[in-house]
């Protein structure tokens, strides 16, 4: 449990959510309102500490009077607005968007994707066997982490985290256009030759497993990755005096990866290369 500082008080905005009068603090998004009302609106690209990019379009809802659907993750609740989250139109768009995503990328390591595909009765196979796919081989060019862009849904979260929203390293960006768009380093260079500082903050925010620890990638390939069997222990990083929180994911008494709590008021989930990857000494048995 980390300390969460109190926010200054905010005025309440009153609007109608699925027929019910709802009051949320000014500045809240429709998704915030849905979550506090206990509604489950699916979303992939929304990040708790990043500015919503609303690129995945899975969270679309119907706003009365609007020509198109609105992304719940970034559209702010306005006084008097009437929002419906579960209309035929919104469900149709979510279904098709899930089909488009699942038919072009590998969602096997995306949390909840399979559940939503079932819930919305999405059938990604109906575009046929010849439907174009992203079709990328995993990029394994260093010992710390793997980029498997076949799983990338282009949510921009890694770019935002590497850039001015978290890390300020700007090692990766979106390159190309249209279906050929990819997350890329400058000139598509290997990570060790790029500006990457291996903080791993991009892995922290990746919602699909396109970016993963080499340990996790290897164990998944070997079939030994067993998330339910893992324990998570949040502790303090011992490398320097900042005192970042690190969460150790342990399977069979070995640390398999390190994350960081996003609600930590100092680091908001950020770590450096040492905190994120420098855990081998803990399990050095010599």
């Amino acid at each position: 449990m980390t300390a969460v500082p109190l926010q200054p008080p905010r005025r309440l905005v009153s609007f109608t959510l699925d027929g019910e009068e709802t009051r949320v603090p000014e500045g809240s998004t429709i998704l915030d309102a849905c979550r506090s009302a206990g509604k489950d609106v699916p979303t992939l690209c929304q990040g708790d500490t990043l500015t919503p990019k609303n690129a995945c379009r899975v969270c679309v809802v119907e706003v009365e009077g609007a020509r198109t659907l609105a992304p719940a993750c970034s559209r702010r609740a306005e006084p008097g607005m009437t929002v419906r989250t579960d209309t035929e139109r919104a469900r149709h768009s979510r279904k098709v968007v899930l089909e488009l995503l699942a038919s072009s990328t590998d969602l096997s390591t995306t949390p909840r994707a399979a559940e939503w595909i079932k819930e919305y009765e999405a059938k990604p196979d109906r575009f046929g066997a010849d439907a174009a796919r992203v079709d990328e081989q995993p990029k394994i060019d260093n010992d710390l982490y793997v980029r498997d862009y076949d799983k990338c849904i282009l949510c921009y979260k890694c770019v935002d985290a590497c850039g001015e929203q978290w890390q300020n390293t700007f090692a990766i960006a979106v390159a190309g256009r249209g279906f050929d768009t990819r997350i890329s380093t400058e000139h598509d260079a290997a990570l060790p030759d790029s500006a990457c500082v291996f903080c791993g903050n991009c892995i922290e925010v990746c919602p699909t497993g396109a970016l993963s620890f080499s340990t996790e990638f290897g164990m998944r390939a070997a079939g030994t990755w067993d998330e339910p069997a893992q324990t998570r222990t949040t502790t303090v990083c011992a490398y320097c005096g900042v005192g970042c929180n690190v969460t150790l994911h342990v399977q069979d008494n070995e640390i398999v990866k390190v994350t960081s709590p996003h609600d930590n008021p100092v680091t908001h989930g950020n770590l450096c290369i040492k905190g994120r990857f420098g855990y081998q000494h803990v399990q050095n048995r010599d």
Partner: protein
Amino acid sequence: MDLRYTDAAPSDAEREAVDALLGPPPSGWEGAERTDEDLRWARGGASAAKDRRDQLLPALHAVNDRVGWISEGALDYVCRRLTVAPAEAYGVATFYAMFSVRPRPAKVLHVCTDLACAARGSAAVCSDLTERLGAPGTPAEGAVWQESPCLGLCERAPAALLLQAGAEPANPPQATLPLTAGENPPSATLPPAGANSAPPAIEERGSGGGAPEEPATGAIRCSAVLAPATASALVTAARAPESTLAEPPAGAAVPQAGDPALVLLRRIGTVDPASLDDYRSTGGYTALRRAFALGPAGVIREVLDAGLVGRGGAAFPTGRKWQATAQQADGPHYLVCNADESEPGTFKDRVLMEGDPYALIEAMTIAGYAIGAHQGYIYLRGEYPRAYERLGHALTSARTRGLLGPDVLGQGYAFDIEIRRGAGAYICGEETAIFNSIEGQRGEPRSKPPFPVEKGLFGKPTAVNNVETLVNVLPILEHGAAAYAATGTETSTGTKLFCVSGQVSRPGIYELPFGASLRELLDLAGPPGRLRAVLLGGAAGGFVRPDELDVPLTFEGTRAAGTTLGSGVVLVLDDSVELPRVLLRIAEFFRDESCGQCVPCRVGTVRQEEALHRIVDRTGAAAAQDIALMREVGQAMRDASICGLGQTAWNAVESAIDRLGVYK
């Protein structure tokens, strides 16, 4: 911000090209020789970098114009000069179709295969060209050719554009362009019926052609427009671009030129577009004087009373947009002229800018005055070299004469205009994508709200208007709102420009009062004997059947008929055209031009194209399943895409299925 650059060094030519734009680097931190002083030198950091990021697109153009492609060393040098992260600059460079980050020849031949050119034989030109020069994308004889989306030369289809990289001509083209020679009175340049077989007389030198004494070594930058194009002319041009025959004057695209009823087109083909005196002697700058007499609020009132709505396709009331921008407390305010005319089949803005550039500059000055802006940008599509030169020339002479600058017309109002060239991206015509492009970001649209009037260019209140919209402001101020509103219908006031292309005998730009019917327009242009369909509004528009030609050409009339005026495209197809292939080209266009930001558009446009490929030769039950699939995907694209590109990408195909029964 801790930026890491690569070790790649720029060539001398690349460095020169960038330094010519940005000036020499002041310190070792920006790519100059390191000195001891550099160790004590610091300036600005991240905020300084943000100040110069907007020079990224011009800098990429500078390198691409000089060398033909953007090498690692050149990109790295640009990044050092502007304090931009190399990964981000790479992301920007790979976004635009006119840039290459792989080596390629200095000469690139863009051959249009889009709707209007396809309807007039571009496929044959391409297959001939493949035989003579090899497959598209394969360098041969120091040149490479590639298929291109609409080049905006539809009245002279099939069209091609040759761009040769090299050093800038010794005499800047705007100073030497022999503009007057070609701008003959309209009677001499009116294309005869069946203009295709007999293109208008060619009198003017190719735009941007270097001085004749320059050696033909490929070292001098030039561009050549070839339209109508034949494979043999293209091969000759690829060998010696500077010897290319000149383009016909802009007036040749206006079959009605000289008609006293013309309002927006009245000067085109009758005055010299390079002469400010010609412009003034035909009423130029009276509208601006009236604007100063009325004051900003008075100008907005006139535009509101005139009922002017945007001509870029969305038909939003211009006066309301200006009022909302003018009222914003945040400053500075900006004016952006959207001259990124990339809708297939649209070329009216090109003709306006080439034939009457001062009109746009005067109109922008009025708009800037009304909204309280002191800086305007013309975001011009990269494929319009002649419009770029003529506007550049017009801006320079307007500045010299005190019509732009710190004290416009001695009225104490400061206003200036900068041209920003796009680099091949249809999406950059979307109003918020323009901001990102000017700011040096990828040309991806932004989410709305916030709307541009609140947070636009550089996060400041911005009014974005299309070229044709702006030019309408002149007759409003010259004759008053009431006189303007007397033309057209109650809700569609004034006149409208239509870009007529395809199988008509007199393709070109036509100006008609709102309310004229499609039939009247086609009668002017000479319709084909066996009309199959008319595509109204462009690739994002809809088809009209031959029995629907009485549809009134107004915003409300076309809406009631289930189609749209869009940007004024009227593409006429006779029954020799295979409609499934036209639809396939539309789908290809949207797939190519999707920015890739949101899923419905990025993947949906691909799925739409795949389905159209599957049913291209099928009808009835054999096509039904794929049509149902496209309907479902189309609905999600329309509902859930971020911007208009994805939202409209299914329109034309849907209307062809429903209204033309194309797969029945």
